[in-house]
């Protein structure tokens, strides 16, 4: 009990749904951030066990956020799972090649989201 996941998405509703699903159905502790810079600040303040990171965000997008996290040794090892509306295999491969632990497609099924995360993170 009590693994912490940081959910990063610029869309308030998506963020809340993901947070509720992970808290209520997965039993995780969830923190949220609305942008890349906010996520980085949050990770430094309280490092989570994993980050669910939206790809398309205004300003600093998901991949840039991941790069910034990797540059900082204190945050480099936190596993990141991308959340993306782009479902093409090429996009998935590109994201995985960046060092993401996995990719979750939007829309996700809230009932299976916790299990999906646990699986890609190797927590099962």
């Amino acid at each position, binding site marked *: 009990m009590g693994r912490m996941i940081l959910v990063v998405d610029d869309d308030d509703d998506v963020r809340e*749904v993901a947070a509720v*699903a992970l808290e209520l*159905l997965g039993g995780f502790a969830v923190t949220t951030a609305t942008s890349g810079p906010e996520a980085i600040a949050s990770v430094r303040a309280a490092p989570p066990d994993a980050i669910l990171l939206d790809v398309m965000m205004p300003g600093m997008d998901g991949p840039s956020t991941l790069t910034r996290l990797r540059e900082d040794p204190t945050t480099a090892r936190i596993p990141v799972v991308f959340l993306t509306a782009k*479902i093409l295999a090429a996009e998935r491969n590109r994201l995985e090649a960046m060092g993401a632990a996995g990719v979750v497609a939007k*829309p996700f099924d809230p009932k299976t989201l916790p299990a999906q995360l646990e699986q890609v993170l190797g927590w099962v």
Partner: protein
Amino acid sequence: MPLVPRPDDDVDRVASLRALGLLDSEPEERFDRVTRVAAALFDVPMALIGLVDQDRQWCKSSIGLRDREIPRRQSFCAYAILRDDLLVVPDTRADERFADNPLVTGDSAVRFYAGRPLRSPDGSRVGTLGILDRRPRQLGPTERGHLDDLGAWAQSELGDLALTDAVNALADEDLARAITASVHDGIVTVGADGRIRSVNPAIVRMFGRHDLIGAGAEELVVPNERPIVIQLLDDRLAKESGSEVRVELHGRGKHGAEVPIEVVVTDLVVGGELSFAVVARDVTARREVERVTNDLVSVVSHELRTPLTSLLGSLGLLASGALGQLSERGSRMVDIALANADRLHRLVNDILDLDRIAAGAASLDLRPCCAAEVMAQALEAVRGVAERADVTLCAAFPPFDLLADPDRLVQVAVNLIGNAVKFSPAGATVTVLTSVEKGAVHLAVSDEGPGIPADGLSRIFERFEQVGSSDTRAKGGTGLGLTIARDIVKQHGGRIWAESVEGEGSTFHVALPAGVTRSMPTGCLPSGRVMIVEDDRRIAGLLADAMWQLGVAVCWSSREDDAIGQIGDLEFNVVVLGVGGDGNMETADRIRNVDAGVPVILSVKNIEDGGRVHDARPEFSVTTIDAAGLAELIDQVRRLLPDRGEG
């Protein structure tokens, strides 16, 4: 006034006249001098060179006549062209053809007419040289000779094609210049030295430069693309490319802005010297449309998926009960919302799929793949739906590899089998059979649903085009599935079609060309291979499904000749041959002829037939198509399969 008779060849005659290019042209001295001489010679107030077309007589040259054209029915010339020699009318009032002609009764008061037909170079009588007088008169033999001579003169002017051509050529040149000046495409000619010789206004507008003549052709494009242009012209000089080259480049437009251009280079040989015509089309607008289309897909992808994520997510959480129990009606409402959000999601996916296929973005990943694997995946995907709908799936592993994109084929198969299940009543069977016919892989998915009206059979593959769309919506379809299936099959170079008998069911067929590897696929299939020869698709489905339980590869053929061909090509462990009760074993004997060793089991519809067949040919095993018979068949085939180390 009687109607003017028309010559038999009038249509050709008018065509020949039109080809002269004289109708409605300006007066010309070469004709006017003939009429002038004629009027003077015969001392008549009126003379003309009249050309008779479909509906009128039109004067290329005339003296003393008020109208340049008159209706054909009032024309004297229209009569003159009916004959080879001169038409002479000494007194028009005494001639019933002309007595009430307005030219006779009216101000012109024509009393005399003589006309000499004029022939075009192909011999058609296209008009006349005519003389008219206001008093009756006769024409003596000498005068007739003069008129004939003058006619011959006028005729030689008609036939002076060299002159006509020269005039046309002049017009062509003007026309060509006018076209070049007015088109929106930029046109430049480039000499063999690579320097621009001429430009049209569009090029000047496109590039905003007036100093292009004499400049190198490469200066038209952005610096980093200049080597491409130089290479292209070099290749053409060396004749290393075809007669026309088309490339997409970027022009350097006004103020240095880049202009996407499509360039077509064509060889020109002018005065024995090679040069090039370069046509540059500004494709900014086309690029913009492409960009907007791509953007739209991207926007649909992201902007619709994001709200769908929240919608499906929040509804899914509500329905899961994790947020507390809803009332029965509340939960029903959430289910409705969830089902519709889900449908919207599938619609978005389907639209994106179609768009990617249409844009060529979803290119095929062609590789040898195991058809059995494709079928197994597809069946797995729909088995749950089929069970809930109480629909039995009868299917078999196809025993071959094929060259295809397996993921896409699974998509096609899921779509067809899923549709068949959706439209089947409870308790019905959906039969999925594969066969190799004439080198093509053939998939047939049959249902026992309501069927499709004949006029709907081709339409159903169109976007959102269903037979009874309300019906489809009730079934939860997006209306795009068959279109996607069709596009994928087409991408594979195959064909998809439907057959149906209303009230009895439908069969969807997919034929994929060649690409079949005849060898037994490695790894993905069990070790046995069974051929089913049966023209009743329903029975074939039952037999195939029984074989499926054994996990063997099954080949099905409804046509004996195809089946015998395959038995000759592939090695089968067992052939199950459907026969009637009449004991006709010709096919069994033919099978034995191509493969003497293969065990043949005869399948019959009932026990009575079984008895008769067994009595006629005791050397063959016989099975009936019922539960007991099929169970026995499974046992029998299992014994005939290679030992798989089970005991």
